[in-house]
């Protein structure tokens, strides 16, 4: 798994002595430390866990969802970029597909930003973290993009995307407060919009249970068609909807990076423009889609 110039620590059972412990220190983040017993990086991502997940998940990706990409050349092969996509399915199936797909096709790791609700759930939170997910905090995104030149995936709709019910499918929600544009401006990286078709039908929400959600502190609690079809298994089993992903042209901003603040009108204009591009791409893709299951 090529990983830029970042050398992953080896998984040795005993600490490897080095002549000068300071020579191995990297400038940023102190990533490669001798004596480490695991390969969990500062963000919680473990390449070993990721490799295992890639092996287990690949059949889902290529056989179940039969994911197909177009415009992959729009994703930069090096340097930071903020990937922005529409968000759907009660348990979002788009994040793993995008992260797996880009790792598989481009060999670049993708860090996925998610609601910090994930972090509070035992086991799930830890797994999500090991697989490259992290809480959506502007500081995290900035450091990954500007200082470490990584690919970061974010869903600007937030939990409002996957929370929407089936009758609202492919209707993009508000893109937050445009925070993703501001981060990309600050970090001086392009935004790469991605339109995803298929996630909506993989686990459609029939209705929500807001009272349950408020009791357990979750952003939303859905009742899905999958639960009716598969019973309890439906909480985790997706329908085999055909996935099509279209990577749109990168958006670059002609503003100096690292400003304290950017003109809110400019930020919101860009946010709206990017939302429009994804929405239009979705309509375009849906116009040519003959079948939910076969694409």
């Amino acid at each position, binding site marked *: 798994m090529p990983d830029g110039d970042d050398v992953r620590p080896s998984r040795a059972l005993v600490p490897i002595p080095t002549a000068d412990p300071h020579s191995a220190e990297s400038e940023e983040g102190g990533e490669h430390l001798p*004596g*480490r*017993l*695991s390969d969990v990086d500062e963000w919680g991502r473990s390449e070993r866990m990721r490799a295992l997940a890639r092996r287990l998940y690949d059949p889902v990706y290529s056989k179940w969802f039969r994911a197909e990409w177009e415009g992959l050349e729009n994703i930069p092969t090096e340097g930071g970029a903020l990937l922005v996509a529409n968000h759907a399915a009660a348990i979002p199936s788009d994040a793993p597909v995008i992260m797996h797909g880009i790792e598989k096709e481009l060999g670049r790791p993708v860090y996925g930003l998610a609601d910090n609700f994930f972090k509070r759930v035992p086991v799930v*939170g*830890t797994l999500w973290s090991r697989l490259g997910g992290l809480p959506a905090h502007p500081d995290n995104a900035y*450091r990954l993009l500007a200082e470490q030149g990584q690919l970061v995936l974010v869903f600007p709709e937030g939990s409002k995307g996957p929370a929407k019910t089936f009758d609202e499918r492919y209707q993009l929600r508000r893109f937050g407060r445009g925070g993703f544009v501001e981060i990309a401006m600050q970090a001086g990286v392009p935004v790469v919009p991605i339109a995803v078709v298929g996630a909506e039908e993989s686990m459609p929400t029939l209705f929500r249970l807001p009272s349950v959600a408020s009791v357990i502190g979750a952003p939303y609690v859905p009742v899905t068609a999958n639960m009716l079809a598969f019973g309890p298994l439906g909480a985790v089993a997706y329908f085999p909807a055909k996935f099509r992903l279209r990577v749109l042209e990168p958006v670059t901003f002609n503003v100096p990076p690292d400003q304290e603040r950017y003109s809110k009108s400019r930020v919101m204009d860009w946010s709206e423009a990017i939302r429009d591009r994804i929405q239009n791409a979705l309509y375009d893709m849906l116009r040519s889609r003959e079948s939910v299951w076969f694409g």
Partner: protein
Amino acid sequence: MSGSSRRVLVTGLGTFWGGRVAQALEADPDVEVIVGLDTTEPTVELERTEYVRVDANYSILARIVRAAQIDTIIHTFLIVDPTVMSARAMHEINVIGTMNLFAAASAPASTVRNVVVKSSTIVYGCSSQDPVWFREDTPPSRPARRGVERNLEAVEGYVRDFAQDNPHVNVSMLRFANVVGAEIETPLTKALQLPVVPSLAGFDPRFQFVHEDDVIRAIMFVLESNLAGVYNVAGDGLLPWSEVARICGKRTAPLPPVGTGLIAGPLARLGVVDLPEEYLQLLRFGRGVDNTRLKETGFRYEYNSVEAVQAFIESVRLRRTIGTGQPSYRYERDVEQFFRHSPAVIRD
């Protein structure tokens, strides 16, 4: 202040940090006078530090500062381990003590020109909304709720006010991450010495450590280079708690993630391990702080997070066998004493 000789006041001389700082100051020939305050006798051997017994919140401090013409205050007497005393006593020392200290330091005609405060990264809090790395100017994600956090918040407020009101004084505040080392005892070091290390089931957050020697070196560095401002002090790298346990050669014993307090309470009562709320939260979400600001001033750490934990567990193993974590220490000092005072040594 580039004055050739300093007159230093150290608070909390009887605590681990006060004692260690005083020792480091004694080794510095530029330091002329060292006055140490505490409610209890110092626990380390000190040669030329003068110990003054005071009450917990230093009500007579202004007179000491004036009489001894103190120009530098090193405020180490901040309790960040809630297991060692009651919340009320801790508040008295941390909040009221700091308030009186700065009241004395800002008295008219005060000679104080340098202040170093030893704070803690606990002030950032610990929650699911946190960034992976806290910078010095990152606000806590949530208002402080727990004892130590609220204490430190108030303390840092006094420090900021003092710095604002006294622009001629060099005020620096160091926030230390989880300290480990040969001597220091914290809830984390105690937990890591148990046969199995407590953790929370389903959580494996990342921890950052700083070695106790780097803590002292950072304080001395800030003092010598007259730095002002807030600095995080923490070794490079974040380690999952499970890996920390493995470096220490231990397995983890997961506590239930729900109703953890119901288990932690009895464990503390039984004397097994006392994990207060602050530390349970840390076992859930961890905490990382960005240490680049201090590094940019030229400070170099001797230990990163891994090396700090390794050094800690090595001294634990040594202590288990020979009773002390730093075997050569006392011996060297005796030799030093001999060179300094013995008539047998011929001096030029």
